[in-house]
């Protein structure tokens, strides 16, 4: 089927292809999809001290619409807080890229990838807090 301009533009000039350091404490990584389904998206976000997304990268195995959806998602999350990023819905992506019905799953996958990246970041933090709590000396009972 012929592709529209926006999809072609993201396909020809994908924004933010690449990889962030997965182990960094301020990086969240979401990998969604499955090779046997024909699409896998990896979306990564990096946040600053205020939890604002300062960088995002993606890599996608999938059709042109999947590549475009994930490229657009990285563009849109940059500069947002985590809560604002969670407001991005697949319907916004469908509208922006004018995805046909058979490609709607690509937008769903992109939304899932954002959510997975944020969840990963939060899980990492929770784990670190738990570790810190375990390592810290037990609070001294008050003597008064």
């Amino acid at each position, binding site marked *: 089927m012929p592709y529209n301009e926006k999809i072609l533009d993201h*396909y020809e000039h994908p924004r933010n292809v690449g990889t962030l350091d997965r182990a960094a404490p301020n990086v969240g990584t979401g990998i969604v999809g*499955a*090779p*046997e389904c*024909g699409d896998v*998206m990896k979306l990564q976000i990096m946040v600053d001290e205020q939890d604002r997304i300062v960088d995002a990268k993606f890599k996608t195995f999938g*059709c042109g619409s999947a*590549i475009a959806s994930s490229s657009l998602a990285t563009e849109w999350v940059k500069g947002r807080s985590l809560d604002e990023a969670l407001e991005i819905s697949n319907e916004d992506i469908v509208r922006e890229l004018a995805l046909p019905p058979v490609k709607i799953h690509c937008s769903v996958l992109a939304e899932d990838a954002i959510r997975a990246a944020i969840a990963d970041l939060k899980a990492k933090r929770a784990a670190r807090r738990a570790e810190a709590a375990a390592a810290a000396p037990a609070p001294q009972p008050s003597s008064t």
Partner: protein
Amino acid sequence: MKVYLDYNATTPVDPAVLEAMLPYFRERFGNAASRSHAFGWEAEAAVKRAREQVAELIHAQPEDILFTSGATEGNNLALKGAAAMYAEQGKHIITQVTEHKAVLDPCKYLEQKGYRVTFLPVDSTGRIDLAQLAEAIKPDTILVSIMHGNNEIGTLQPIADIGRLCKERGVLFHTDCCQTFGKVPIDVQALGIDLLTCSGHKIYGPKGVGAVYVRRTRPRVRLEPLLHGGGHERGMRSGTLNVPGIVGLGAAAEIAGRQMATEGPRVAALRDRLRDGLLAQLDHVTVNGHATERIPTNLNVSFAFVEGESLMMGMDDIAVSSGSACTSASLEPSYVLRALGVSDDLAHSSIRFSLGRFTTEAEIDYTIERVVAAVRRLREMSPLYEMVQEGVDLKAVQWQPH
């Protein structure tokens, strides 16, 4: 440069074929069934000539050839026509899983009508197992339908052995030869073929015309018609003959026959050049189908970690097709590749290149360059390729199918 490498889908009409057809749209427009005047006789003579041209290509008699609207009709006629005609002898049909839908769907239709159909599996190269076929033939088996060359992966079935087996067991043998007619030698006598389907537009003839070979002696095969009417084509296919189309099919068959001995090796060499060029420059590339038993025009390749539709977007001046779900209406990857045991991810990554009469070495070299560049670019963008580079075993990853 724009390169057409989808000749297994369709071919352009050869200029000589078009020239042969044109008078039959204009001054020689007669109905081949008009027996009372010269217009009809002229048309009838042209059809007779085309029948001879088609027959000669498969070593048949001209009277064995029926003209149809194409291979879908031909396959339907052979399968449903034989099933209806021989229902009293039995209601069992044998075919195999990588047949074209124009064979599989009539078989499924016959299943609904009370016939029993055995769909034989294929091995990893796409070939059926003769012992399995022999075992599948039962006393109530009336027909075996196994294609000659597969349209997606190019694999040739061992039709000489199948024909021999069918003869021994007294079962009719139909073969869909759309991809081999005019490209590979076919001898219906030597191969023991009772019914054969072919099409015009795969051999530089027009669309909308095809033929069925129906054996008339040892045994005399009869088919219940799909279309009832004026009793054309020995009563098996009524309808005013498509004279220009039939003339085109005949002319195309004659040219294909004349060129086969030189054209086959020429195209096969270009196909091998394409394969070798791709394999030399890219890793994680697999050729699907049989290494040697394949039609000369076809190369089916999986480029791991790259999805087929996005690959085609990346080389949009090269016309090819893909087994990826994204290119099919069903959203399922190629059933043919699946039948070979190719994993779904590699089916999504498959591209069919099919070459033809007008393919040049320059086109092949350009294609190699374009494919290699597109695959490399998309792999840079592929999380799977990155994971494999990092040593991750993709099979061990917990994916989330959606």
